């Protein structure tokens, strides 16, 4: 965490005018990449992600195939121009880890046993980053998978929470992320409230962690609603 003397909450309002429990403006579009079997575009404020699903398709090399289910592969990547200082193209260590936890976040929602010996490839591309990129990517992946017609137990809803200026907040933007006392990205299946992504860094009390998880589950219902609307709009 970096330190700042700048106040991040003034008169109960955050830098972008939001209240602590407000989510940024959300934009979700499904079916945005014609070549993909399923695709989506998701924007939370300035943070913008594309996700494309290719598959289920034959997995080569064959020795990676699973006889009784599809394998799921997830790749999270950031565009060089998505951040202030140009990022070197290609995955770094952070991206490798985010890809791994993204796969774990998505896997419980899918009926992989429907497609033995195949792979389902989920590609997430962050084209603009202003905090909370991994959860934005997971929301896009959720929609892209549904768009691809992959059987799912539920959509996957993802949202971040944290603490700034002694206040618990949700949906951190980049600056809040940089100076936050904690950042907790979460993904969950709304119907069962199963939590499939949970990471945390910062310095807060166990009670604040628990409260933030509760806040995210509650506010996540808004994201769930937006996802469902976006899917319906695909077929208007």
């Amino acid at each position, binding site marked *: 965490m970096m330190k700042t003397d700048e106040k991040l909450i003034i008169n109960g309002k955050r830098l972008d005018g939001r209240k602590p429990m407000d989510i940024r403006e959300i934009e979700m579009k499904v079916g945005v990449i014609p070549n993909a079997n399923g695709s989506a575009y998701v924007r939370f404020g300035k943070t913008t992600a594309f996700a494309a699903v290719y598959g289920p398709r034959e997995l080569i090399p064959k020795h990676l195939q699973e006889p009784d289910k599809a394998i799921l592969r997830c790749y999270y990547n950031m565009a060089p121009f998505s951040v202030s200082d140009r990022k070197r193209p290609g995955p770094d260590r952070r991206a490798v880890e985010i*890809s791994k936890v993204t796969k774990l976040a998505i896997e419980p929602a899918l009926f992989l046993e429907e497609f033995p010996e195949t792979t389902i490839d989920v590609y997430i591309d962050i084209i603009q980053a202003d905090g909370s990129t991994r959860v934005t990517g997971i929301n896009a992946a959720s929609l892209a998978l549904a768009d691809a017609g992959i059987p799912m137990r539920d959509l996957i809803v993802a949202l971040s929470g944290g603490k700034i200026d002694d206040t618990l907040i949700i949906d951190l933007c980049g600056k809040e992320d940089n100076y936050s006392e904690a950042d907790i990205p979460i993904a969950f299946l709304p119907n069962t409230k199963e939590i499939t992504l*949970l990471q945390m860094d910062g310095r807060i009390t166990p009670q604040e962690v628990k409260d933030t998880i509760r806040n995210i*589950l509650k506010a996540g219902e808004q994201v769930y609603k937006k996802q469902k609307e976006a899917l319906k709009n695909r077929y208007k």
Partner: protein
Amino acid sequence: MKEYILNLLEKNKRIDNRKLDEFRKIEIQKDFIQRAEGSARVKFGNTDVIVGVKLEINEPFPDTPDSGILRTDAEFTPIASENFFPGPPNENAIELARIVDRGIRESETIDLEKLCLEKGEKVWGVCIDIRIINHDGNLIDASALAALIALTTTKIPKIKDDEIIREEYSGKLPLKHKPITISIGKIGDKFIIDPCLQEENLLDSILTVSVREDGKICAMQKRKNSLKVEEINKIIDLAVNKSKELRKLI
């Protein structure tokens, strides 16, 4: 074997006769590598990890010109398991390194501001390297403990004419906090501490929690499948509680 382990757990027993919330025998050796500025070897039963800390002179990051640099890497060397192979670190090694790194970085273990040599030009880089010697489960907790203990043994080398004089020291690495990292596995409705490899393979889910000495949580990572809120809350409380036990070993 699977049935056997699960049946035992039903009776709150484990294959190595431990209680559900009991660590394996923990062995700690400090200053294991003399060439390193700090080091430790930690065993949790048959899990064996060596951590070496090297210091080097680095250019600071532009946004923290007067602050030292921390870097954590892990290698799953093929000596440690039939499932480890030569090559660059895979996603599991990278995840382990990053979880250990977050525990140390977010808890503010190292007083990085005291590691500035020349503002904007030169700072100390603290490189934590984790090597797995034998893998019998719970690599993250063993690695995090080894890394913390290695940091407590780390000494800062002398500098003469901009060159580091190895194995001559000017003082100890300044530390501010001491995080303890604990992973708690869930099988059915049972929660277990320090899973061995056979147990680890059967876990329904696992959550890693780093706890500072003031009781604050500084890092978490869910590493398998899914968890319910009440399960997470229970794991957090258990981790805070058990961290006191490990803390006595430092």
